[in-house]
């Protein structure tokens, strides 16, 4: 695959490491009363749909950016690529 890096343009996906569901951006509050449950969900109940999916990719053999890809897992079409830090900072953790 070719990943359109938001800063660097098209790069071969071989330069990246994939971590999966971008819901990992939404780390729960450790001091909330239901932390045991929310962390369990956060850690284990991740999506892996056949279709459009938001995923975390790390440009390990490049600039070391973590990216959020919106990708159709059936066709491998990549619909959007964002810097993970931008996604978090802009409040769009989902």
């Amino acid at each position, binding site marked *: 695959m070719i990943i359109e890096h938001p*800063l*660097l*343009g098209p*790069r*071969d996906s*071989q*330069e990246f490491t994939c971590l999966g569901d971008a819901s990992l951006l939404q780390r729960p509050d450790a001091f909330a009363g239901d932390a045991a449950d929310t962390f369990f969900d956060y850690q284990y109940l991740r999506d892996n749909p056949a279709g459009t999916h938001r995923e975390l990719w790390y440009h*390990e*053999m*490049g*600039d*070391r*950016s973590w990216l959020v890809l919106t990708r159709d897992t059936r066709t491998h079409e990549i619909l959007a690529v964002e*810097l993970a*830090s931008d996604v978090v900072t802009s409040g769009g953790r989902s």
Partner: protein
Amino acid sequence: MASLTAITALGGITACDKTIGGIRIVEIADCCLASLAMRRGKAASFRKAAKKALGTDLPAPGQWTGNDTHGVIWMGPDQFLVEAETGTADLAGGLAASFGGAASITDQSDAWVRFDITGKDVPAMLERLSAADTRLMQGGAAVRTPIHHMLCVLVRRDAYISFTIYGPRASAQSLHHALTATAASL
């Protein structure tokens, strides 16, 4: 008390210089390098200090900028690698003084091995080593990309067919082998 003698990344007392076919591969020892990372929220003072200390604008992503005394490579968001002339005393310390609280500075002089490659066959050599479109890299382009699984930095400083390749210092021999074997196989 004995003073210590430095060796090059390839293990020599002097740097390795090899010409294979139409390609010259020169190990550049005694690199003066420092990593320069912007402190959060300090963009304005960071840029100002950079201009003053380095005499050049900071490069955009995928770029290198430079002048007679310094080169700056874009390494990642808000992160740069500063190159200085061989023999620059305490580059990191000097930068730390210039940038104050606007940057995190780390000496990287010993983190990398540097090879400068020149010759008409360089494009043919690089297309065997790197997925980067090195034929279309213009002067001032810099790319971090793997060569044989080693994360390297390829820099084309000017219009001449010459590249600087930085690789992890501990892998210097593997990287050098990859370069020389490829140069010999064109």
